[in-house]
């Protein structure tokens, strides 16, 4: 065997970084043998069914439990009054507010939790729930956030009516939560005053829901003799949840164990602590038996973890060549009835200030006003890093609006404003330091791949032909993401910094177990992390086991959301592996009787420089590490734990292009082509990355084309089942064409950035830009999502293009 072939064989055996190793976790999933929350069955377990409010806003005049308690199988009915003695009828939220665990005197949104019926099985529990009689006095509801701060608006939150602030600065109205600002308003205003061109557009990111396949739920089990609380739950952040539970319950954190198990998708929905969890826990503490609570699909869409509901206004100022001089973006944020917005403490509007996007914009100002409405509380980051979708939607749409006003091509407007490759690291006017990027080459690669000029020619011909039954649109999105929260100096939740962790233990024969503070919900962590260790330590990925989600086993971490697993825990993994490798090197030097400086690393072994036959493989070293044949003073074992505090977030980017054909007569939008180029730096498992991009694009398609949680004027849900809420199937989903460039992240030990949310963040404006581009020649500058057939037809009908 030639030396090259031998090296390749050794490398291939590892299945390390850069290889499309099939997902190690799939063997159980494709057999239907995952273990999800509803698979957990404990002896003596009771089932909890939640009684929910039919009204969006009402006073509770009385609750009669008698009939429910008489129902066969029903054990207890819990209301706010029952939680009061343990002071758990209210709980703090991640947004600095408090939220009713069970409605205390009034309900503030439809389907709010009013009571929980505990029964021997779920059938009895729901029979009992149907028999709880609640006497309501209906109150006028606020559904439109634009009406929240009217002088005569009904006060939604009487419990905090007199509070001057709820976590984030002064309030100006009882329904006002906070006002957040970033940037230099005076400088931005001055840029607008002197600008040759200004554009302004209002645009809504409608209220949507991440809608994971598995709804939220838990099994809480309190062991009275030992005082231990075990909670099996659908959580993306089990360690943070354990901390919250310790704060809430007064139980020592060492006696609380949160177990994640397999999780059927999260997409942000499974970050918060929900009332259902808390009631189940209290019920278990009181009864001493395990309690299971599982959401129905309607409960999930109606009450837990909505996203968006940002009513934005975008303004750009530019010179006549389209070079942007100023940006002013604002949003009215509808947080529902309680501010349980998920974000790092210091970022009440998330990372909205990434809204300058991929562009060099010298003057910028951003502002978000958050208000209460009689809708479910939130929101969460739906496959995006904390309000990044809202920010990028605004900038990517506004680039098109500006291009239209100037008569410039939509690719050209971007070229003229990109941060150039030679400008990195680049600090934006809103304060973020973009560490790396290569925006021009990415866009040019996409334009070439799709034959952009040809597409524009075809579009021009279609526009000139009045008989064409379709309108053709071309959308471009050249986004920059901000993921991997984050440096503890700026990012914390409830005071806990957003570092993350990895502990690696190596067994004598070379088997590895790695435990992390993150929590996979389908991202392929068991595979990706194993590949990092395989490459770093020269041990086969097949023998590396990854465990997450059990707080008794894993080191502390902030969990998986905001595409932070690879940027933070991936880095922790590499650093922990390197600690082990350093020790291994010392052992190798000892065995080979050379100095460490005489050794070099080659795939899976240390070899003596200039004498390659003298080598020690990592596998050999693993065994030796468990013997007495070690350098003087060295302890046995090859273990390490790393807590990694990233110096910055990571900034993946991409260039997307979408071609749509709009049926003028039905309003249906057909996606003819979608080309997605992503740059996430080092690609650890290309297949897993592709999978993440396919998923993110599909959810972007869902949001842009159909997802919305609609309400009537009284705050009643109008579409909270999967009949109305759009989850695309394979039939509706377009074919995705993917591509990539690689620009390394300079501060990440592997050069990697997050990726799973890029396609969602970048995809949504790309679809909108394509649909609106189909109407651009008719003077249309914006159409709000979702671009459902009905809504697109209304545009056709208004313009008269559907006349025969």
């Amino acid at each position, binding site marked *: 065997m030639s030396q090259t072939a031998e090296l390749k064989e050794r490398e291939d055996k590892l299945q390390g970084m850069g290889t499309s190793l099939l997902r190690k976790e799939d063997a159980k999933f494709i057999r239907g043998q995952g273990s999800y929350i509803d698979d957990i069955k404990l002896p003596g377990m009771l089932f909890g*069914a939640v009684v929910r409010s039919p009204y969006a806003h009402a006073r509770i005049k009385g609750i009669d439990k008698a009939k429910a308690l008489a129902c066969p199988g029903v054990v207890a009915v819990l209301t706010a009054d029952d939680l009061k003695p343990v002071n758990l009828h209210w709980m703090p939220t991640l947004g600095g507010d408090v939220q009713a665990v069970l409605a205390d005197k009034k309900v503030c949104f439809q389907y709010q939790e009013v009571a929980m019926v505990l029964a021997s099985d779920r059938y009895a529990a729901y029979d009992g729930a149907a028999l709880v009689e609640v006497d309501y006095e209906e109150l006028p509801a606020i559904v439109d956030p634009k009406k929240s701060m009217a002088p005569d608006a009904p006060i939604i939150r009487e419990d905090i009516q007199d509070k001057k602030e709820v976590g984030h600065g002064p309030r100006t109205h009882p329904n006002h939560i906070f006002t957040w600002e970033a940037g230099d308003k005076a400088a931005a205003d001055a840029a607008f005053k002197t600008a040759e061109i200004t554009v302004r557009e209002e645009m809504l990111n409608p209220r949507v829901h991440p809608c994971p396949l598995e709804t939220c739920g838990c099994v809480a089990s309190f062991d009275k003799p030992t005082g231990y609380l075990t909670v099996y739950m659908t959580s993306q952040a089990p360690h943070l949840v354990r901390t919250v539970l310790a704060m809430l319950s007064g139980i020592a954190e060492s006696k609380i164990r949160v177990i994640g198990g397999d999780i059927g998708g999260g997409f942000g929905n499974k970050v918060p602590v929900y009332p259902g969890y808390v009631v189940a826990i209290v019920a278990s503490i009181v009864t001493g038996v395990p309690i299971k609570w599982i959401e129905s699909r*309607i409960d999930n869409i109606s009450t837990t973890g909505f996203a968006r509901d940002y009513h934005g206004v975008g303004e750009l100022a530019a010179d006549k060549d389209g070079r942007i001089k100023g940006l002013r973006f604002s949003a009215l944020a509808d947080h529902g009835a309680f501010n349980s917005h998920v974000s790092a403490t210091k970022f009440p509007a998330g990372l909205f200030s990434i809204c300058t996007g991929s562009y060099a914009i010298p003057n910028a100002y951003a502002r978000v006003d958050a208000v209460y409405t009689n809708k479910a509380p939130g929101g969460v980051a739906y496959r995006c890093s904390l309000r990044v979708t809202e920010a990028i939607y605004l900038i990517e749409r506004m680039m098109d609006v500006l291009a239209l006003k100037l008569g410039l091509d939509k690719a050209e407007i971007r070229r003229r404003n990109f941060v150039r490759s030679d400008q990195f690291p680049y600090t934006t006017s809103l304060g973020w330091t973009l560490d790396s990027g290569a925006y021009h080459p990415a866009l040019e690669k996409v334009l070439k791949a799709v034959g952009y000029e040809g597409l524009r020619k075809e579009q021009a011909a279609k526009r000139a032909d009045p008989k064409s039954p379709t309108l053709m649109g071309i959308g471009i999105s050249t986004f920059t993401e901000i993921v991997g929260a984050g440096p503890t100096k700026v990012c914390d939740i409830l005071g806990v910094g957003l570092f993350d962790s990895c502990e690696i233990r190596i067994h004598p024969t070379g088997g590895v177990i790695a435990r992390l503070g993150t929590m996979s919900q389908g991202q392929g962590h068991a595979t990706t992390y194993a590949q990092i260790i395989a490459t770093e330590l020269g041990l086969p990925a097949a023998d590396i086991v990854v465990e997450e989600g059990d707080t008794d086993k894993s080191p502390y971490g902030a969990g998986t959301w905001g595409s932070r697993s690879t940027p933070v825990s991936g880095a922790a993994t590499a650093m922990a592996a390197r600690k082990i490798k350093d020790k291994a090197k010392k052992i190798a030097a000892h065995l080979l009787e050379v100095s460490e400086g005489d050794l070099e690393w080659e795939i899976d072994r240390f070899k003596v420089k200039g004498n390659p036959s003298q080598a020690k493989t990592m596998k050999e070293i693993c065994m030796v590490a468990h013997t007495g044949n070690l350098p003087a003073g060295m302890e046995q074992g090859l273990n390490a734990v790393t807590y990694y505090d990233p110096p910055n977030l990571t900034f993946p980017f991409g260039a997307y292009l979408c071609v749509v054909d709009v049926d003028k*007569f*039905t309003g249906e939008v057909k996606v003819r082509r979608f080309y997605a180029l992503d740059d996430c730096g080092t690609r650890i498992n290309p297949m897993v990355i592709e999978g993440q991009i396919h998923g993110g694009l599909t959810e972007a398609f869902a949001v842009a084309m*159909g997802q919305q949680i609609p309400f009537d004027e009284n705050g009643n849900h109008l579409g909270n089942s999967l009949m109305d809420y*759009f989850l695309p199937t394979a039939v*509706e989903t377009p074919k995705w064409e993917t591509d990539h460039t690689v620009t390394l992240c300079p501060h990440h030990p592997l050069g990697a950035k997050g990726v799973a949310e890029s396609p969602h963040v970048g995809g949504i404006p790309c679809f909108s830009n394509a649909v609106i581009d189909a109407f651009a020649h008719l003077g249309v500058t914006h159409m709000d999502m979702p671009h*459902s057939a*009905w809504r697109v*037809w209304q545009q056709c009908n208004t313009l008269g293009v559907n006349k025969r």
Partner: protein
Amino acid sequence: MIPAGFDYHAPRSVADAVKLLGELGPEAKLLAGGHSLLPMMKLRFAEPGHLVDLGRIAELRGISEAGKEIRIGAMTTEHELLRSKLLAEKVPLLVEGAGWIADPQVRYKGTIGGDISHGDPANDQPALMLALEASFVLTGPKGERVVKADGYFLGLYSTQLAEDEILTQIRIPLPAPGSGWSYQKLKRKTGDFATAATAVMLQMKGKSVASVAIALTNAGPTVLKARDAEAYLKGKAIDDASLNEAARLAMKICQPTPDQRGDAEYKVAMCGEMTRRALQAAHARAKG
């Protein structure tokens, strides 16, 4: 999403099922696939005391040709319609229509009889039955009666089927040779009900329409037969002008319920569009 309690019965013959219905009275509901009834029960919109499952009655399944008609057992699944070679050859409209119903999982369990007798104007089979001029065999304690599809649908969830009767068989006269057909359905996604849908059977004589049947799904409280449009088209050529007028006449009778699929304006317009497209497609297939 948990139904109230009920008793479950699984008779093995039509006679036993009819007898059970008589004994159990109005508290009993027939289970004929369950993809409409069970969701209503899970939401507790329906709380029947008894379910009489027709799924184990072998005599209610199957597709056969008998003289000048096709006979389909009421418990034949939508999937079986879709896969039937006999139907593909003799009644292709039913195959095309079945392919638009819900999704594969629903079609494996959902039955033609359940689809028809649920009386939901959003279901697809009622319009297909009207266009095909089908008739239904209803079996009760006094024996069988045969009623025409046209006139069977009385209102929302209301049909001529009496409380003590079971729809046992669907009879479809063999369409004339050379007939054109089409079912055009606009829906938001796989598995959804129609925003609007139109079933058309068309016979041409030379360049003009010899006969046409047009039926509209989800356009009113029941399936609608577009009689004015049918009458207008008779003897006319299929061209832009006649399509426009037929679509206009079909739209005139629509009274759709606004929902998340669209408001009345959109749904009526789509009813016109689906009618136009169904006529065009049927015309392209017709040999006259």
